[in-house]
């Protein structure tokens, strides 16, 4: 189910502005890769290029190559909608659809893409909510609005919604930054369980979180405001946190800047 992502020499632009420059990396399947770095260094932007979400913003475009196993995500024949069905995303702020019930939120991705069979939907909704560790909390109120849940539950609902379309890769853009520590712990446990089935990439500002949940960590930085962000290094998480190759990584990790 999980697939490998190979990025080579990727530049990301918003109009004339080059936001990210020269990123090459491999994201391993069935593992968690964390992106860390100071604000504005392009880690979220880069994450969004992995499922072509940056194109939603006017002027967003890339140069370079992103391969999902042997598929070129930026090939002219590739439909961005199909890319996003394969590579799911969870956002910073929980964003359940406010007009929909818990059940409808989880079923949304399938329903909006034409799946109508009630039995299929029931099965996938239950399986996804169980996968997101939310089933026991909501199984008796599936028809209640999704927006009525707590922040942490909403975020797990969003994860359930993302895995309901059965993606190969799950991108998470600071999924815990709007949550309290207990909800954060629940999401981190969930990430640990999900990585046996999915390739997970997570952007985080919380270095302890990166150390706790990820197998590999990528450090992004930028020279100055207005300059494009770059990938400084990517390695095993233990290596990055204990003995990084670059001085700037060590400075950032130890809190000397950023």
């Amino acid at each position, binding site marked *: 189910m999980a697939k490998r992502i190979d990025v080579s020499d990727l530049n990301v632009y918003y109009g004339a502005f080059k936001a990210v420059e020269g990123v090459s990396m491999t994201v391993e399947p069935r593992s968690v890769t964390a992106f860390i770095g100071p604000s504005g260094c392009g880690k979220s932007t880069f994450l969004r290029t992995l499922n072509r979400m940056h194109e939603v913003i006017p002027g967003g475009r890339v140069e370079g190559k992103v391969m999902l196993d042997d598929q070129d995500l930026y090939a002219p024949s590739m439909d961005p909608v199909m890319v996003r069905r394969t590579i799911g995303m969870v956002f910073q702020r929980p*964003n359940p659809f*406010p007009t929909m019930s818990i059940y409808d939120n989880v079923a949304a991705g399938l329903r909006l893409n034409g799946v109508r069979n009630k039995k299929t939907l029931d099965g996938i909704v239950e399986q996804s909510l169980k996968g997101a560790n939310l089933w026991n909390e909501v199984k008796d109120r599936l028809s209640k609005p999704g927006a009525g849940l707590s922040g942490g539950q909403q975020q797990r609902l969003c994860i359930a919604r*993302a895995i309901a379309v059965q993606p190969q890769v799950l991108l998470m853009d600071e999924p815990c930054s709007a949550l309290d520590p207990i909800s954060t712990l629940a999401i981190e446990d969930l990430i640990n369980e999900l990585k046996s089935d999915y390739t997970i990439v997570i952007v985080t500002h919380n270095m302890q979180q990166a150390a706790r949940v990820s197998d590999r960590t990528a450090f992004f930085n930028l020279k100055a405001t207005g300059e494009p962000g770059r990938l400084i290094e990517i390695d095993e998480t233990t290596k990055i946190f204990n003995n990084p190759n670059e001085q700037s990584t060590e400075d950032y990790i130890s809190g000397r800047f950023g």
Partner: protein
Amino acid sequence: MSALKTDQRVPEDENMTGDSPTSPPPSNRSGNEALREMSNPHRGRAIKDLIARIAMWVSFFVAMVPLAWILWTVVSKGIHLLLSATWWTGNQRNINSSDVGGGARHAIEGTLMMAGVTALIAVPIGILTAVYLVEYGRGGLARAISFMVDILSGVPSIVAALFIYAVWVTTFGLDRSGFAAALALVLLMIPVIVRSTEEMLKLVPNELREAAYALGVPKWVTIVKIVLRTAFSGIVTGVLLGLARIMGETAPLLILAPYTKNFQHDLFNGNFPTLPMMINQDRGDFALASAAARMWGTALTLILLVLLLNIIGRVIAHFGSVKK
């Protein structure tokens, strides 16, 4: 520093004396003096607050007076006609201004029909324009359309009516009819719908669009099932405001849809009865008590009709609104 601290505390703790544990009294003044000084700015704010309150209530009552006055006049002079069953079933056929009796059903049906046809044309155009402006429009074309909508919303109703007259009657040589009036009303309704729908679509958080895109949902499905769905109740409210505006519009009817006292359900041929035109008809013989009463009754009927539409819309909006 301590002066700053005591100053900040004033609103929450008016009776504070200088010997509070956190801020020792200034050594060269008594506590009372300090208190007096502290309460001065507070008194100033209280006076400003009072003035603002009075201004607010006075404005409120000034605004309410004409509204209450109009309602009272219309209700007190027109209600007795509405209490008879004929008012809701009959028409004005063979009833002269000096006669009492007859009904307004022909005009009620006419106004509803005309508003319905107008909405049928204007609502899809207006909503689709708003969707284009908010979801797709970039650059010159969008700006041009937005500017045109602004101009259209400033067009006086009589100008819209004359424009339709020039096209419908002068250019195409067609007869004046209910449908021609409806076309003029469409011109007046479109900008109201575009602007209100646009505002509602802008209120839909971008996160919801992104959430749908990230699930691999195509853009048009996202707009139909997520964006329009989330903005539904606001859009309904906008449509109702538009309807309320055009139902009372009279100039296009004067020019394009001559009144008839008979039942008439054909929008394309002959005269067409509407409530504003029925009011206008009786206004001509205002000196006659029978005509004056009928005029007030018709006005009240129109007000009630708009009110009823608003209530229906509120109910629809309530059941379709964002769940909390």
